[in-house]
């Protein structure tokens, strides 16, 4: 795996994607780049293709045309297993909701990525202690670690998801509307904590949202319509 430090963490060019069997929607990204340590907010309406774009970056969806390079590695050059491995090692992911395995404990949820990412695993000397530390820094009480994820409030679950995305210090964090299920008050507190931890490990952040008010704390705010041509937007 090519890991030149000066490569941008994400580099997309000439990407064109269409859902198989659907002609009404197509996503075109002529060029988009994310530097190491950079935080970017990507704004777009609902149905504009934000989640689709993130899936392309994570390698769970594939394009026929163009290149998507994560940490300098072109996803198209990798096998399915290779893309899964790259995602496991390089990217921490947070969704809008349902981030955690409800039946598993909080600590098992946080440690789960290490199971699929040997490099992140070896960077984490004492996994359980690291999970505890992350939880503390994200304002979660210690006794939460042994509880089942389903017993947590939505706000707590989102913070556990941040801890899981950041364990083992991946260079890129991808967040798909992580604050939409939180009320306005806790949105800010959540972002404060998340940015605090991001800054500590110097990871990049690509977060998508439909809410432009969140833009202040990001290095860059990008409209999806500025970097992408979206055809036939869904209603």
């Amino acid at each position, binding site marked *: 795996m090519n890991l030149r430090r000066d490569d941008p963490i994400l580099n997309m060019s000439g990407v064109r994607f269409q859902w198989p069997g659907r002609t009404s929607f197509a996503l075109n990204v002529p060029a988009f780049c994310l530097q190491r340590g950079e935080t970017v907010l990507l704004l777009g309406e609902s149905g504009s293709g934000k989640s689709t774009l993130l899936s392309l970056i*994570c390698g769970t969806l594939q394009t026929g045309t163009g290149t998507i390079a994560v940490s300098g590695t072109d996803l198209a050059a990798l096998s*399915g*297993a290779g893309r*899964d491995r790259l995602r*496991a090692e390089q990217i921490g*992911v947070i*969704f809008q909701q349902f981030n955690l395995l409800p039946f*598993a404990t909080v600590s098992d949820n946080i440690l*789960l990525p290490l199971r*699929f990412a040997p490099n992140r695993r070896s960077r984490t000397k004492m996994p359980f202690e690291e999970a505890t530390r992350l939880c503390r820094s994200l304002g979660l009480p210690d006794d939460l670690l042994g509880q089942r994820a389903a017993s947590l409030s939505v706000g707590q679950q989102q913070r556990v998801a941040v801890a899981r995305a950041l364990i083992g210090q991946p260079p890129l964090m991808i967040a798909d509307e992580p604050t939409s299920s939180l009320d306005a008050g806790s949105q800010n507190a959540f972002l404060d904590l998340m940015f605090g931890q991001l800054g500590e490990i110097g990871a990049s952040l690509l977060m998508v949202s439909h809410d432009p008010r969140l833009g202040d704390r990001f290095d860059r705010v990008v409209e999806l319509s500025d970097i992408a041509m979206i055809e036939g937007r869904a209603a």
Partner: protein
Amino acid sequence: MIIRLAIASLSARALTVGMTILAIALSVTLFLGVEKIRTGAKTSFSDTISGTDLIVGARSGSVQLLLYSVFRIGNATNNVTWESYQEIAQRPEIEWIVPISLGDSHRQFRVMGTSTAFFEYYQYRQDRSLETAEGALMDDLFDAVIGSDVADTLEYSVGDPIVVAHGLASFTEHKDQPFRVSGILKKTGTPVDRTVIVSMEAIEAIHVDWKSGAKVPGKTTPVDMIRQMDLTPKAVTAALIGVKSPLQTFTLQRAVNDYTEEPLLAILPGVALQELWGIVGIAETALLAVSAMVVVTALIGMMATIFSSLNERRREMAIFRAVGARPSNILGMLVLEAMLTAAVGALLGFCFLYVGLLAAQPVLDSAYGIWLPIEPPKWREIGVVLAVIAAGAIVSLVPAYRAYRLSLADGMMVKS
């Protein structure tokens, strides 16, 4: 951690998983139980007669002769005349010979006429001999020794009078000659437990007023007169024989089979048992196949529940994919869960088997004389458990492959 997650995921669906486990457990219990009863019945049968080298009777099938002479199943078509019996008894190969006369009954139990030598030479479970629990062996003409089941069922004790019926399940009882219980035998787990034993002479005495199976009208010889009569048996149903040296067994067998005065048959009990197993073998195989099918059915039930759970677990699979799991990891996890389910089911089935054995052991023993030993699992049974786990894994591959395809298509986004 993956096993811990699998267990957590299973216990989150405790109800359906519990039902699946129960179904697998019961099917495994059935399978192992059938197997136990099968082997138990075989050993019980083989344990019923030992130390006897040859059984002689009128010519019929060897299995038939074995069944009626030893197991009291079915009836003899013909008797052996007393003259032939005497002639065989004189042969040089004979170490001992015991006559058996069957055909009468007392309530639901069969009456067997024999000599006291029977108690000396009849052996079961390798080398055990009959022993009396109470009372003594026959002394008087009208003395009867009863097996332990006879005593238990009819609540007889030593000294009680009993009446013997001619023929089996017949209502015409030999009212005139009341027998007396002189002794009760210890439990053996063989058909002896369900037999009323009297002397050969007693059998003759019963039939004094009978001719070709029917009572001579108006004729009732008083007991005192019977005691004066010559009660030498006219025929025997079969004879148990011990030879002096094992090498002579076949010589004697051939001599009996070639006997010219009347058609006779001599069998080796072990060989006849083998022949019997050959006959019941088909039924055995069928029974095993049916119980194996029940296990398969339970596993297919498990497959169905995995299938129906897939849709609600798509989010779970998306989470796994997001943290870097491959679709094949998801396939592996489902197979692992199925193996755990099958393993717990099979082990629980084992527990049920032991509980069932504890409960059924006395019942089977008293009702059928089949003793099922409670012992640690045999390799064969452990093999069954491993086979069930493996079959669970194989069966789960079908829904697991569907999960593989689903998670490949869904990626991190579940279309809701």
